[in-house]
């Protein structure tokens, strides 16, 4: 499995409880390849002013959101639609369990930051486009916009880190069990 790229232009979604039906509607679950999901990322997201066809959505490599991100269905199509669009990092205050596990199982990052840190990232957007970089080993996230820069540290369990390093759960489990 190819190593994922963590970091890049951030798409800021100032909402809690963004669910998997909004990330990838059920009508696309008839696809049996990940690639086929690509055009439909966040198609049904309910957020004022949000346009799933906009340039900022296309260019995003990181998504930043509020609480309980990825709630709802177990569909791994949600992480996959991010994966095929190059979004390998999500940063949120908290996650639904299945979505979070699916991200790490695919070797991607679901980073949890406390509310004040997320607030600070959203505040940076006043200065311009937000660019995020991630250092997995040091467990830090750096967000930049205009001339400002903020760095935050995050927690990741040794298991989740091992999954990211192994390229996902299938390889890890097959080697061990």
């Amino acid at each position: 499995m190819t190593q994922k790229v963590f970091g890049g232009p951030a798409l800021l979604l100032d909402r809690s409880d963004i669910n998997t039906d909004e990330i990838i509607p059920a009508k696309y679950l008839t696809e049996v390849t990940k690639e086929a999901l690509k055009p439909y990322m966040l198609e049904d997201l309910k957020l004022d002013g949000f346009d799933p066809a906009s340039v900022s959505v296309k260019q995003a490599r990181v998504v930043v959101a509020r609480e309980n991100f990825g709630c709802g269905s177990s569909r791994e199509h949600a992480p996959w639609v991010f994966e095929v669009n190059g979004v390998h990092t999500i940063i949120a205050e908290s996650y639904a369990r299945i979505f979070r596990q699916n991200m790490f199982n695919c070797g991607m990052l679901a980073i949890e930051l406390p509310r004040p840190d997320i607030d600070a990232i959203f505040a940076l957007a006043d200065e311009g486009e937000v660019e995020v970089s991630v250092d997995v080993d040091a467990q830090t996230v750096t967000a930049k916009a205009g001339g400002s820069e903020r760095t935050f540290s995050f927690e990741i369990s040794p298991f989740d880190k091992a999954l990211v390093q192994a390229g996902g759960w299938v390889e890890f489990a097959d080697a061990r069990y």
Partner: protein
Amino acid sequence: MGQTVAEKIFAAHLRDEPFPGTKVLDLDRVLCHEITTPVAIADLEWRGKDRVFDPGKIKAVIDHVTPSKDSKTALQAKILRDWARRHDIRDFFDVGRNGVCHAIFPEKGYIRPGFTVIMGDSHTCTHGAFGAFAAGVGTTDLEVGILKGVCAFREPKTIRIDLVGNLPDGVYAKDVILYVIGQLGVNGATDRVIEFHGEVIEEMSMESRMTLCNMAIEAGGTCGICEPDMVTVDYLWPFIQDEFDSREAALAHYRQWCADEDADYEQVLRFDVSNLEPQVTYGYKPDCVKPVTEMAGQRVDQVYIGSCTNGRIEDLRVAASILKGRRLADSVRGIVSPATPQIFQQALAEGIIDVFMAAGFCVTNPTCGACLGMSNGVLAEGEVCAATTNRNFNGRMGKGGMVHLMSPATAAACAVTGVITDARPMLAESAA
């Protein structure tokens, strides 16, 4: 210190703890359907690992879109069907014998107290009604489950919910769980197991317990759990009678999976349901819940009775008791999907299907149907559905559609009037 149900099951199934806090469990059941499994199968083939850990512990069904509606869904069904044949997975339910996963697998007796169960479906929490630890997982976890018979979890903390009092007439398990979700919030039980206790549970059928546990995920819960008791044993008896000398012996055996008296809960909540009113959701999140009386009069275009939440026989009975001698409002279309062939046949035998058809309902084959807007019963932009399902997310039943979640009784009453309606006067009139 005593243990919760989940802690006991975790301890008994622990295969490995590769890192502190990460528990890899042996699985008793890996359940599969045609939406999330084909991708796992394709990936296993691509990796050259097209194997299964134990065909007897894997059960599979085509339920979300069935019979297939187009070439893509036909391919999904074919991938699952061919795979089940190739690996000698005998318990595979194809067109004609298939039903909604979380209804048909328990009905076949596959779920037992103390079991570990995973499925690539978030409502797998339903099976906790049998005193099992059952969790929805994504395709990668499912894939490893199929291949190795294991799954990794962080050991969940448990929230205990005591339900006390007497459920009033016209108020059902669905109203209870909607109310509980309203109290907990959609994030209130994330990474938690919800253990249900109390006299209200003791009085509930297995069907009602499944309705309750089904929606644990809507509060973020990993699993909803009811302790095994004589109701559980009676339900399972046809499948376990060769294993035990008597029902009492079965119960004594299964009681090892009950929580200890001094179990340590993260949180204990107590709800007296004696004054509970029927509940209805109003927004795009399942915790947006109000008593039906505050929603009464709002327009409904479609009524849907079915799904893994409320497509079982007792649900159809309650709805039929309201629909008998009444007709759908002209402005409404009604759809009912009995959740399994057995339920369909039972409903036929009891005259329930006649009642639905006489009232003007469309009766479909057992399938997930309108629940997730993938096959039939899709809403047009701006339309509203009164549904016995479990999710009211934006677009769930069709782009721009609105879903109100409610009990089968409330849904049947809405069908009669064409607006959101308290079913209790109709129930009282029917009973008189």
